């Protein structure tokens, strides 16, 4: 049995979906990012000045990695959650479950879709940011790795959300009430050094803070949090949640009666 062909097909189906609805998948991040740069970067950012711990960088330069991560995280998550739930809703998931495709190939097929959208949107955000500021990437390999593993992790989380989802509400509850607050409070727009000691402590519970700072280190060469901590955290989460998603599919939770 040619499982590579199965995986290639499912990945292609998911990528084709992203490109078919490009107005919903690619354009919105470009517009929101441009607005962030215009309002927080150009208009308000100039009054903010430098962030503590990032001396020598303008606020716009500080914000670029955070905005890339914001787009990568939300888009890779949303892509897999909606694609998986959409196929459950239309019963198209049965086409896959009836076939000889192993669970790992089903998982990777959806995850590759999420990674593709994360990377595509990441590229769009970089291009938009170049309209407002210029920057040099400190470590290209680490930056690419960081985008890849972050989009992988959030694609897996989106998959788990899609597996459990029974209604369209279920795929918007987690992004709206959990993911968005964690991202916005995860050091995208500010350094936690500006917070009080208590709020700094609370912020340190937020895993997104480590992910954003790992990427900021890869891109700018400086970070307020030890990048090794971010690297370890993201790797452990990726492996752990991958195993959880695999277990859920193996047991047929959310997809089989």
């Amino acid at each position: 049995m040619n499982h590579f062909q199965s995986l290639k097909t499912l990945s292609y189906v998911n990528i084709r979906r992203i490109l078919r609805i490009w107005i919903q998948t690619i354009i919105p991040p470009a517009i929101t990012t441009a607005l962030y740069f215009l309002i927080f970067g150009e208009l308000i950012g100039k009054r903010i000045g430098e962030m503590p711990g990032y001396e020598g960088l303008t606020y716009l330069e500080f914000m670029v990695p955070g905005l890339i991560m914001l787009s990568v995280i939300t888009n890779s998550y949303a892509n897999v959650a909606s694609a998986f739930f959409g196929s459950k809703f239309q019963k198209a998931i049965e086409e896959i479950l009836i076939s000889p495709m192993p669970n790992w190939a089903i998982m990777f097929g959806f995850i590759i879709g999420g990674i593709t959208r994360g990377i595509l949107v990441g590229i769009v955000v970089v291009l938009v940011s170049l309209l407002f500021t210029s920057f040099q990437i400190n470590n290209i390999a680490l930056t690419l790795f960081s985008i890849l593993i972050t989009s992988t992790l959030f694609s897996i989380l989106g998959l788990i959300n899609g597996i459990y989802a029974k209604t369209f509400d279920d795929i918007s509850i987690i992004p709206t009430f959990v993911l968005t607050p964690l991202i916005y409070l995860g050091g995208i727009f500010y350094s936690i050094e500006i917070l009080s000691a208590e709020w700094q402590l609370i912020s340190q519970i937020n895993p997104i803070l480590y992910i954003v700072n790992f990427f900021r280190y890869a891109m700018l060469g400086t970070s307020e949090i030890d990048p090794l901590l971010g690297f370890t955290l993201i790797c452990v989460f990726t492996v752990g949640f991958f195993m959880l998603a695999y277990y859920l599919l193996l047991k047929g939770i959310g997809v089989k009666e």
Partner: protein
Amino acid sequence: MKALEIKNLTKIYGNDVHALKGIDLNVGRGDFFALLGPNGAGKSTTIGIISSLVNKNEGTISICGVDIDDNFPLAKSKLGVVNQEFNFSQFEKVQDVIMSQAGYYGVSPHVAAEKSELYLKKLGIWDKKDVFIRELSGGQKRRVMIIKALIHEPELLILDEPTAGVDIELRRGLWDFLKEINKAGTTIILTTHYLEEAENLCRNIAIIDDGKIIENTSMDHLLQQLENQVFTIETDNDLPIDLNIQGFKSEIKDTKKFSVIIPKDTAMNDLFEDETFKALKITNIKNQTNRLEELFLNLTTKK
């Protein structure tokens, strides 16, 4: 070697509904097999478990000699399933849906494109290949479902009510197509509520009721169990109000039409030799009821 071998298949749903109570079922290679039963009897659960859409509690399933738990990919590669409900993305085009399904089975795009063209032409929807699925009629969607199930050339094809909601002309066309692929060697298992369909197509039959197989035999053997047959007879004469055919129960339907019940062990010649009957100018004789339907009702209501 059997095309399908089921042993002690049991399914208990979460709400403590015992959908399957340890069924055993064998379907021979090359057979055209009917799996019938009333709504909620366990047909779709059985098909769901065979096609991995439903988890079983107990039992084993072998497809063409391959145990589904021992070698999942090989067993599944031998199976094609046409589900009762449409299961494809409404936002994809016909050809894309078929090619994707082939890809999930590991069929290369080149081979899949050839097969897709063959079946689309054979089932008369080649001109729809670039049309979005949502724009197709119910009958056209049903044909896409059949093509999807056949695209990897399975040895066993299971069809769960494949002609539900399709017009008579298309239904007949699908019957001919299914007969053709069965003749070419594909084993077919069919569930249907059109019992005429099962009677015309299938050689063997199992009836499932309340999660148990209550009958599993050949179609001929089953039909021999009929106690009576009812015939409707049309005449050129005006029928007498007191129509009486010696030895047969009869009922006048209108001035030129009546029905007569012929018991299983009675020769039809006795009817033709009756003096009253001989005096009539018969224009048409037809079997009034679907024979299988009558048996089916007898079996499934006998509790």
